[in-house]
């Protein structure tokens, strides 16, 4: 099993979600995050006062899938989240040891 985390631009969420639904991904966790990478924060000036925008608002997507499906998921996110400009984000793939569904106690694939 793999956990795929992707940090994407907020306005790309619908596209990515749609793409993932199309390939049969049913569940994902979406959280609002802030951070910066090569796309830095900047300063805005209004009437002499400075307003610092330190972090860039992004969305983080987490999807857990069977290993076979992981490359496809990555491809969809990559395709759908791309604008070609800076700040398109990153995708992280990690191996996952165990998944347990609390309600039923199912483990592994069954619990995804």
């Amino acid at each position, binding site marked *: 099993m793999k956990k795929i985390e992707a940090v994407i*631009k*907020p*306005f790309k969420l*619908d596209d990515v979600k749609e793409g993932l639904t199309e390939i049969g991904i049913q569940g994902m966790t979406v959280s*609002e*995050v*802030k951070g910066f990478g*090569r*796309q*830095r924060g*900047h300063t*805005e*000036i*209004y*009437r002499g*006062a400075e*307003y610092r*925008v330190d*972090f860039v*608002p992004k969305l983080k997507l987490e999807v857990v899938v069977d290993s076979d499906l992981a490359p496809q998921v990555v491809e969809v996110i990559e395709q759908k989240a791309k*604008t*070609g*400009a*800076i*700040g398109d984000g990153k995708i992280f793939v990690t191996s996952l040891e165990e998944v347990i569904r609390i309600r039923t106690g199912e483990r592994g694939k069954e619990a995804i």
Partner: protein
Amino acid sequence: MSLLKSPVSALQENKEKLIACFLRGGEPCFLERHAEILDDCFRESFAGSSVGPGMRMDKNPYAIIALGGYGRKEQYIHSDVDVLLLFKKRIPDEAKGLIQEIFYPLWDIGLDVGYATRSLRECLSLACRDFEVLTSLIDARFVCGISSLYSDLMEQLHGKVLRRHGRAYIDWLSERNQDRHARFGDSTYLLEPNLKEGLGGLRDYHAMLWVARATYDIREPRDLEFLGHLSHSEFQSLSEALSFIRTVRNWLHHLSGRKCDQLYFEYQVKLARVLGFKQKNGQQAVEGFLGALHGQMEFLKRQHLMFLGKAVRAKGRSGRRKATRRTVTPGIELVHDALGFESPEAILRKPQLLIKIFEQSAILGQPLSVEASRLVKEFLYLVDEKFQRSRRVIKSFQRVLVAQPHTFNVLNEMLNTGMMVALIPEMKGLVNRIQYDEYHVYPVDKHLLRTVQILKELGDARPDTQDAFYGKLFKEIRNPELLLWAGLLHDVGKSRDGHGHASQGAKIVRHVFTRMGFPGQDIETISFLVQEHLFLMHTAIRRDINDEKIVVQCARKFCDIEHLYMLYLLTVADSRATGPKAWNDWMAVLLKELFFKVYHILERGELATPTATDVVERKKKDVFQRAVSLPRKTLEVLFDQMSPRYLLYTPSQDILRHIELYQRLGQEPFLLEAQASPGTNYRTATICARDFPGLFSKIAGVFTLNNLDILGAQIYTWRNHIALDIFKVKAPPDTLLENEIWARVKNDLRSALKGELALEPALGEKVRAYRSLQKKILRRPDKVVVDNETSNFFTIIEIYTHDFPGLLYKITDTLFRCKLDIWVAKIATKVDQVVDVFYVRDFDGQKVDSSKEIAAIKEAIKETLANGSKEAKVHQ
């Protein structure tokens, strides 16, 4: 015993029957009946007791007394049962046996029975010390045993305990209720109200009852009306509210299978169904149900607050001599920190007092008295169309709207008395209208008032707080009342069915403010704000705000910066007033980014002025008319790819030609088209190519290599990374061979792009061979300006220098080596003075804003310029 049913099994059987009857809807007095079958059970257990008779009832009388909810005969399906075993004197040892006999079987059937065994004296001294105990005793009701003992208890409770501690008790009650309201006032409880402890929950009623019993010695709830504490219609409404909430609570106990008082999401839809709510006026059944529940709870909450406030004031004033009374404006007077009408007749003589009293309330920061609110309601029929249209009425209303917020909300009072709906009947459908999701925490009417409140708070934000920025913007607005009106009515479209509440609302407010006689311009502003109140948030979250075109399109919606300020503040207030899911720091940052970008575009005025918008629209129309061979859809897509600057500055016949070039481009790396302008000695060379960093310098280099003198250039990049480079060059000296020259240019460019032609060495030779006939003139020093303020999207580099052969190539090549990508360029030559403007971003697509980088770029360009002119001079 075995032949007879035990009291407990009889209880079980009766209870089952009773519940079945309730679920069929055939038992309106379930709570009372439920308490009564419990009474029966106690009575029979007591009668059949084996221990009881040996306890010498004559010497030490005792009684079983119901307490708390059971005492009030308010027994829900899973309520617990509180009982007092009261003895006149000390508690005999046999009491334990009696308890075993009576209570143990009840526990066995899973009933939650709590009991206390006390002597009369213990009860009274405990009630003095512990007001919780006092509270449960106030509700005490005799079940069985010696009834005179119960009478003794109640007599002494009122005669001794409450006479001595009454005031402290009421203070304690009022404080405890404030705590409870604070604890349950959280927004989560609005989505999933707590029917017992929540705001407007049954506890609010109980508290009223306790206060009434402690203060006025009231026995029956009905006495509240008989003694004049509530009007007949108020008591009627109170009974209805209680009956509704009680039914809901009982159903909730049944559905959840336990003593559950919080109306969780999972039960809401089911409850709406069993209570017979139907889909109506585009509202789901559950929304109708929750709306009704909110309405009843809101009513209960208000009755509670008014009643308690009055009781606390009455108790507190008992020592003072006389009520203070002063007239604040003819017909309205201030009595004991509350505003009232001089007399009901005064209202009939002068109906405008109905709005004046709210105005005074807002100005003085004093609430309406209970009586005054009641009178407003009763006289609402005086608010007719003439009243609604009256200038003075509207002025008073507006004063309430803009008044500084107090601890209480005058607008809320206007809403609750029905005054607001009377003045703006269009708001009627919004009262207690619920939207069933986790997002909209408040009913629409409450949400609107909260929006106004938050707008005022933003406007009032202190400089050292997080909201200071909003406060600053608010103060820039010339007519803040227009913003507040828009805040009050921005969701008015939700009163109608169907989608698009923003545009529906815009129509409605037009109507409202026309009726109120507002100037046309103000009506435009309010209806604009209502129409677009979701626009900024949608753009911030759903669109790419780093795309200049998106932001320019956004900016074009605003006729001036002030409208942007207003819409921005409305967006913030609206989101905050919706609930915690609709607003957080993350969204605040996104929205602020968009605000600044739009602000800068509007402030610069270049791309988003009404004229600019007009020009672009006209061009679009023109191109669409002339490009008959292309399907409309293709044209739409292409127009969407063109940057705002390109659309503004490129004539429509050129746009047409560019579209045609682009259509032909296919898989070619580039297309070049040279045109002669009749009657001039220059040529326009248009190149359409897939953009990449360094493209511009390669083109410039190839032109210089072929002796084409560049007079000017315009570079645009479409959003799909198609570059359109338009060069003005001097006609070659020998026009006969011109076609060959252009063929060579194309060839060279193809090789250069493939990397087969190294421009630098080839040009070096060329420049040396180029014996420029430059005259010695007084040179002004070169100037390089790097501007990061004009645009949010590009760093702008301006270069002022003297022309020399290959200059443009040199400069663009330097920019490329500084890792800058050219998006827009304007190159102009006047005699030998050159002004070059480049809109650049680094290869990552970011502006260049670190001072180190800027210094390095300036240095590199200056060096290039110095070397270039030296080279040129050396060879003179």
